[in-house]
């Protein structure tokens, strides 16, 4: 079945809400408006306003409310209109959702999925174009998922809604309309399991979320140039499937990491550290990172383009690494 990323998320939530009445959806415009990006289309009609709750524009308030509800046995889905607004809920996410289990010595669980789009779209300016996944990955107690395809989005979201932990589920505005094959019938995808999206022997490209699409495009071009790139998509950023990345690097000896977030202290730096620790002897060349520029996102189109990894920069990085040119 060929469906959009948006429909995949819709199906995942719908199926899980039918299965488990502890699950409810809360956020700005999720109900009558059908979701700012139409992810919850038809939900208020099917589940009613008791389970699909439009909120005022108070991220700390409604995220905190959802965390409290999770502590009392419910399983909320918080839709952040974008993760930029999640910054307002960081105290709730970091100080409460992530820590309550530990602080209580294991007495209290916080089963909650906090989801919405991250990363840049087109010319939305500095406050609406941020890839903040590294922040969340830094916090013990959170799991972080950033799927690239409709199939992964559906299977991982379904599993996230069966997990007893707080989960940050990062989508992307530019992925919502992308389409892909999704299996018929019931399936879930384990959290913490990477997938090799394309096989190759010459170089490993690790990419996640919409950077996976970029990496696959680049790999197509590289194949025409005689370079076989293996594209590994971690899908879950925390816990990270380090072994899948290491196995690929052991085969190819070369690693390029593509991420849209800011370079300094970005997720790629952590992946590089893990690969150094576990596969240093297999590396034939230094690890290369292709990242977003360390600047607030500019509005002007050419500047914005320059701030976000593109196909050419991925190609250049791989060619340099493999051929030295």
């Amino acid at each position, binding site marked *: 079945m060929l469906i959009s990323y948006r429909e995949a998320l819709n199906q995942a939530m719908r199926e899980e809400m039918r299965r488990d009445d502890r699950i*409810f959806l809360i956020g700005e415009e999720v109900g009558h408006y059908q979701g700012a990006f139409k992810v919850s289309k038809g939900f208020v009609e099917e589940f009613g306003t*008791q389970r699909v709750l439009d*909120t*005022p524009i*108070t991220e*700390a*308030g*409604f*995220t*905190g*409310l*959802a*965390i*409290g*509800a*999770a*502590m*009392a*046995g*419910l399983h909320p889905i918080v839709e952040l209109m974008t993760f930029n607004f999640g910054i307002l809920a960081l*105290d*709730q996410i970091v*100080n*409460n959702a992530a820590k*309550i*289990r*530990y*602080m*209580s*010595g*294991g*007495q*209290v*669980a916080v*089963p909650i999925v906090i989801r919405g789009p991250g990363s840049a779209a087109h010319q939305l300016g500095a406050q609406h174009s941020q890839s903040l996944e590294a922040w969340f990955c830094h916090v*013990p*107690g959170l*799991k972080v998922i950033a799927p690239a395809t409709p199939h992964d989005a559906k299977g991982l979201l379904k599993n996230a809604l069966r997990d*007893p*932990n707080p989960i940050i589920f990062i989508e992307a505005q530019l992925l919502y309309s992308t389409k892909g094959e999704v299996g018929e019938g019931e399936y879930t995808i384990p959290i913490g399991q990477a997938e090799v999206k394309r096989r190759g022997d010459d170089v490993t490209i690790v990419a996640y979320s919409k950077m996976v699409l970029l990496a696959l495009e680049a790999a197509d071009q590289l194949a025409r140039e005689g370079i076989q790139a293996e594209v590994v998509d971690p899908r879950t950023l925390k816990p990270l499937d380090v072994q899948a990345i290491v196995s690929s690097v052991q085969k190819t000896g070369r690693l390029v990491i593509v991420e849209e977030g800011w370079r300094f202290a970005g997720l790629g730096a952590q992946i590089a550290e893990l690969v150094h620790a576990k596969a240093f002897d297999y590396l034939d060349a230094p690890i290369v990172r292709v990242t977003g520029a360390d600047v607030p996102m500019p509005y002007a189109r050419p500047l914005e383009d320059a701030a976000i990894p593109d196909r050419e920069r991925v190609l250049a990085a791989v060619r340099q690494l493999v051929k030295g040119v």
Partner: protein
Amino acid sequence: MDRDDLLSLYRQMLLIRRFEERSAEMYALAKIGGFLHLYIGEEAIAVGAIAALRRDDYVISAYRDHGHCLAKGSEADRVMAELFGKATGLCKGKGGSMHLVDAARNFMGGYAIVGGHLPLATGLAFAVTYQKRDQVVLCFFGEGAVPSGQAHEAFNLAALWKLPVIFMCENNRYGMGTPVHRAVALYSNLAEKARAHGIEAETVDGMDVLAVRTLMRTVVSKVRSAPQPYFVEALTYRFMGHSMADPSHGHYRTKEEVEEERQRDPLLLLRRTMIDRGMAAEPDFKRLEREVAEIVAAAVKFADESPFPAPTALEEDVYAE
């Protein structure tokens, strides 16, 4: 009024008082580390308010939480062991003084980011409504949290969705060293802050355990029968410093002020009421002192003799399985 009933309230306040006095001593001996915020002077609020609850009602608090935890029925042994950071503590030594949790008693925790737990309280109340249960949620916080954004986001959602949560503002007049009149524009009537959100609110003498309980019985019954939030401002005073790092009066208030407020010690007030009415006499209070002293001594012994968490505990409880 029933003699045993009042003696029981007195005993609960006395337990908190003596428990905390011993905690301060243990802090001085370095048996307890970190921050230790004492509730001494404010006991009537926890005891009076929780006395109006059902056992399965939820309580959630800020970082000055020992009194609420003990009033909710947690064992003194396990609370003291938590302060000592021992494996036998309520939270296996991972929470500490500011993060006591006793989930079995629906004591959902102490939280140390001012204002941050008010949204959690609305969430507990949301769950009660969602699951069609009839518990109420009692949320304690200091007046220092009242101007915070998270408090107002919580007030608004609770009012908007008619959630059964009682916001209990313990106004001890100082947010650490800053008096309320230097922190809140409408400081003279904090209840107005809640009324601005459409929440019914009341102010009560937080030194008078009977006044607190009487008001709370009405409030709890109202909130339980017709779910809605309620705000209570309890006027009180902290006899000790903000934490153990702060002497009892500091630079921000005078010795004379503290001494004057101590004349309205909640234990003293209840004791005087009972004696004046001929409901109890010195021997009754002496007996309670002995009983409480034994509980506290046993708690210290239990905590002291308990083991620290094993090194393997470090990475346990980060995630649920």
